[in-house]
């Protein structure tokens, strides 16, 4: 195989792996996708090592080996779907490697997130619904609406500013706690526990927990442990934020 082509191939596979990992795909899916893409290009001897913080990929004995680091991990299902589509098209020989690489580069640059106001609204509605599902009082729904929205807004804004996940989740939990306690104090709400439980649901690391266990069961012990640690840290941040408010 020509040198330039294998260079581009390895860049393409690593980019696909990196986008998926950054968007919160399972580790085994990332590895599977990269190996499939490689096999579709008649590269049978590839090896990969995927962890939540970096990917090592090799095309074979005499071929190049590359490493890419993954610094941020968020939940962005749209990107996972798009990369998955590119990989499907490449493996069924519908597009060439060059085309796939271009599409991946475009996916990497584009921001697919919905406007933040819509996300905050979704968090507000979800919090109100959870209050109902957890048998809270219907009169508390307005408070949960406000608190849930504020929680997600703060976690997004602070994370953009500081890039420290733990800190932003902690502050968001504190603000949820403050809103809930104040509303109960001034008589807008009645059950502070139920309001808080409903309103912190948008912050809960659901994707991390499930992915951690599924990676463990697929034999990716390092990835599973790392994701489990991240989930634990998030849960701890939320818990300590709420605890701080409740202790006053």
């Amino acid at each position, binding site marked *: 195989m020509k040198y330039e082509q294998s260079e581009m191939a390895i860049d393409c596979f690593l980019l696909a792996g990196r986008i998926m990992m950054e968007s919160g795909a*399972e580790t085994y899916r990332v590895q*599977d996708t990269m190996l499939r893409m490689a096999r579709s290009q008649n590269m049978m001897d590839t090896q990969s090592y995927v962890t939540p913080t970096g990917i090592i990929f090799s095309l074979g004995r005499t071929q190049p080996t590359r490493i890419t680091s993954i610094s941020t991990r968020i939940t962005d299902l749209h990107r996972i*779907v798009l990369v998955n589509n590119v990989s499907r098209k490449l493996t069924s020989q519908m597009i060439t490697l060059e085309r796939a690489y271009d599409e991946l580069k475009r996916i990497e640059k584009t921001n697919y997130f919905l406007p933040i106001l819509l996300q905050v609204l979704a968090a507000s509605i979800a919090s109100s619904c959870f209050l109902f*599902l957890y048998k809270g009082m219907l009169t508390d729904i307005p408070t949960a609406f406000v608190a849930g929205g504020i929680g997600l807004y703060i976690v997004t804004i602070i994370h953009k500013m500081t890039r420290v996940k733990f800190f932003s989740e902690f502050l968001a939990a504190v603000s949820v706690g403050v809103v809930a306690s104040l509303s109960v104090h001034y008589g807008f709400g009645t059950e502070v526990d139920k309001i*808080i439980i409903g309103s912190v649901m948008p912050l809960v690391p659901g994707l991390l927990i499930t992915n951690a266990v599924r990676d463990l069961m697929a034999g990716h012990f390092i990835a599973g442990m790392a994701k489990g640690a991240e989930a634990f840290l998030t849960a701890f941040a939320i818990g300590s934020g709420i605890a701080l408010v409740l202790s006053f």
Partner: protein
Amino acid sequence: MGTIILQVLFSFVATACFGVIFNAPTKVIPACGFVGAVGWTVYYLVTDMGLDDVRSSFIGAFVVALVAHFFSRKFRMPMIIFSVSGIIPLVPGGIAYNAMRNFMEFDYVMGLQNGIRAFMISGAIAMGLVFAEVIVQMLLGIMSKGKTSIQSFMKVRK
């Protein structure tokens, strides 16, 4: 009957909203909501019948994974898109919260009790998801070569 309809409705809306927060593609957000509504309704009915919450979480997550698998085949998207928001209503937020609150009030015995229960429930959810996926793969495995899954991953490695 009225309460069940309300439960279905509210869990649908809540899960669909989580689809928005997790940035699922717009056209599958109703499907995400449907997965969550089915999972929660099964959980609710099973709990109502008197089963404890660890077992009902397992059953709920199992059903979530089955429905998510159906949609993942229908829309040709990874299963994770549907299962992630679907299990959110089952997450033991309330029990974890109570555990934390007990620890704050220096009631360590109660806190540990609640904490371990929350841990058991999350384990049950994860097991439900994986079991359903493995069983579906086992049933379809012979016919479907080239599908992304734990099992096909294992095949690739051989």
